[in-house]
């Protein structure tokens, strides 16, 4: 299992701020996790549509599609940051 977190507009699009999911089979990465999320329905395919700008952090460090995901990891999805 991994913990998923969603922030800001992406949180509003998927309608969820936190979730626990089983990892996809094989050697899961952020990419395979996102593929699995897209299949959850319209809100999810919209949030992660091609060309949609989103960021991902694994265990609170910025990551990318190729980053491996392991059991127990915290994977957070969010739009580009706008603080300051």
């Amino acid at each position, binding site marked *: 299992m991994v913990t998923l977190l969603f922030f*800001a507009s992406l949180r509003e699009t998927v309608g969820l701020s936190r979730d626990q999911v089983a990892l996809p089979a094989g050697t899961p990465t952020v990419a395979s996790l996102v593929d699995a999320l897209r299949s959850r329905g319209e809100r999810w395919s919209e949030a992660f549509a091609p060309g949609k*700008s989103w960021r991902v*952090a694994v265990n609170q460090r910025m990551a990318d599609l190729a980053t491996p995901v392991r059991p127990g990891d915290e994977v957070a999805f969010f739009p580009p940051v706008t603080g*300051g």
Partner: protein
Amino acid sequence: MAHVRVQAGDFDVGRELDVLTRGRRDVGALASFVGLVRDANDGHAIQGMTLEHYPGMTESALEDICAQAHARWDLIDTVVIHRVGPLVPGDRIVLVGVASAHRGEAFEACEFIMDYLKTRAPFWKKEDTPEGGRWVDARESDDAAAERWKG
């Protein structure tokens, strides 16, 4: 080396900057920046905003940015304070302070920290406008400002 705080409440600029120099005799330069909520942005009237963040990652991202600044310039001390939650126009959002022996380094490091904070620290602004809530879009000009510190 670096004082980082994320908090809902306001901060006292004078007191926070004082921490960087009090009792020291080697600080020649103290550069600082305060960001505030404006009542207009991108042509929208702003009644207020809510700052969302990613607890835990926010603090470590800010600490990492300060550590990069300390590695890059000869700094004595730094402070970053960022507010979260609901804010109204005129409210302070963020304070960055940098103490160094010389002004060139203090100014550069202060700008660097702001540029990196704007593009790398997990905060998101949702503005309240007469047309409803509006998530602020990331700015290309902020990306460009951060890019200039590379190379």
